[in-house]
């Protein structure tokens, strides 16, 4: 089930530096969104910007018919969105795209969720689902990374779930000083990443995804990545979101919006 309709903003609050959480009344997304899926959003603003923007579903509250998104104020659209108040309307199309697939047997696996910056929200939804499905807290490992402490996203939410949470910041202002791949490396050295027992799920900037994918490949750990591209339509028709996915001897252009955004990292051709 998907919808394309104007929806009312229930709340729109700053949660960290240049970060907001917006809660939107939208029964369809509230009911059907799966971890990793996204919505396309637009506000009435003439034709600047022209296209809708994609945002991962962070939280959903079916009992209130709402969902929320955490967004970083980056450019034209997100600045407009930051000015929306309860009662204003935004145009929502969704839920769109595929979801993270929880590796089976889910209760025996160690699930490693690697988040970079605003890549964290869909992984929070995934971690929440895992906990809800009764996967042991100790088997859900979250590595949350950002450049600085104030750019970490969903940190409090992850902590609240009681999962194993590791933090990495490039300047050392929170957690270890370094990158998410440094945490992966130390977990591996401790023997926590046995390939046959482990599955990585990653969402964040492309450079981070590429590094995580390289790590996963080197150590034979299966890995799903959520790719970020420009998404003019989000519906699979414009072909402006193409990503190179390996086929037998070459590659195919797949659409990040409908064939993804989540792909097996081993199939992605990064350049």
């Amino acid at each position, binding site marked *: *089930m*998907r*919808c*394309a309709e104007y929806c009312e903003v229930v709340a729109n609050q700053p949660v960290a530096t240049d970060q907001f959480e917006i809660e939107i009344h939208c029964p369809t997304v509230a009911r059907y969104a799966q971890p990793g899926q996204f919505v396309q959003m*637009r506000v009435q603003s*003439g*034709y*600047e*910007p*022209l*296209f*809708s923007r994609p945002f991962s579903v962070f939280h959903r509250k079916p009992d209130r018919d709402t969902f929320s998104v955490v967004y970083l104020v980056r450019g034209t659209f997100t600045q407009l969105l930051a000015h929306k108040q309860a009662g204003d309307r935004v*145009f929502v*199309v969704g839920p769109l795209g595929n979801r993270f697939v929880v590796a089976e047997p889910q209760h025996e696996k160690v699930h490693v969720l690697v988040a970079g910056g605003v890549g964290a929200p869909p992984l929070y939804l995934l971690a929440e689902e895992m906990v809800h499905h009764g996967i042991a807290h100790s088997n859900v490992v979250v590595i949350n990374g950002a450049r600085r402490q104030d750019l970490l996203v969903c940190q409090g939410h992850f902590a609240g779930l009681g999962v194993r949470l590791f933090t990495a910041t490039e300047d050392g202002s929170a957690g270890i000083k370094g990158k998410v791949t440094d945490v992966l490396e130390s977990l591996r050295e401790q023997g926590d990443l046995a390939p046959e027992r482990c599955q990585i799920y990653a969402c964040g900037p492309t450079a981070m995804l590429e590094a995580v994918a390289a790590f996963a490949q080197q150590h034979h750990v299966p890995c799903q990545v959520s790719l970020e*591209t*420009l998404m*003019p*339509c989000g*519906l*699979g*028709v*414009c*072909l*402006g979101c*193409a*990503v190179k996915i390996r086929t037998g001897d070459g590659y*195919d*252009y797949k659409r990040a919006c*409908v064939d993804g955004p989540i792909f097996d990292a081993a199939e992605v051709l990064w350049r």
Partner: protein
Amino acid sequence: MSRVKMDVQLGPLHLQNPVLVASGTFGYGSEYADLVDLNRLGGIMVKGTTLRPRAGNPMPRMVETASGCLNAIGLQNVGVEAFIREKLPFLRQYRCAVIVNIAADVREEFEELAERLDGVEGVHALELNISCPNQARGGIEFGVDPEATYDVVSRVRRRTRLPLIVKLSPNVTDIRVTARAAVDGGADILSLVNTFVGTAIDARTRQFKLANITGGLSGPAIKPLALYMVWKVAQAVSVPIIGMGGIMNATDAVEFMLAGASAVAVGTANYINPRVSIEVLEGIEQYLIEQGETDVKAIVGTVKRCKPESEF
């Protein structure tokens, strides 16, 4: 709901209403079927289809510009055989006309495509795309050369009994010249415009924003240019016109009809609001009622000059 007559006859092609969706902006219909009642559309112009599947251009392929976008998709498509096998059966379930947009680098391929699609159940018309500005192989845009236009159109004409729409390029000095060449070659209907060639540069990185360097400009930015071209062509030829270029709402669509288009196609707007084509259709009906018209055909080409100041 209709109290006004909305069906239109474009030469040999009958449409239940004049609102189509433009090629490359609505996929093969199935992508939108849960959000839009396809039975209400006048027609679907499917993604540009070539003889063999095409991978398309390297990324980045699309970039937003002021009130518009540039695209250089490079005709990524499944090819005509997969279209017939995998895409067409779905579309056959619906009432709307299915118009296959065909593209090729060489004339013989256009002929083969036309022949292949002739008589295929569920195909209601061909739209000859001689105006794609993103031909990967450094190919010429047939549509900028009147002689090449005449030649390609007349070759295709001989290979098909289907209604033949020729999609004109706006990247010409005088679009009436290629319009006449297409009609002389046997076009039943003209559609215009395709995208305008343009480019975008990132000042910070000092690089072009598109891997292909150039792309085709579409969206509200091109509407005044497209409207002018439709009006000009309507004066020059007697075949019906499908107008497009930056239509975002019903008022835009009505303007194209007043300028001389018998039908309209909604393009880039489909990306932004998947239901826009239905809103355009309902808006045109509303407009006709407000204007006291009972038949949509009555407004085609009825634009008048505004009174110059001195005549007040």
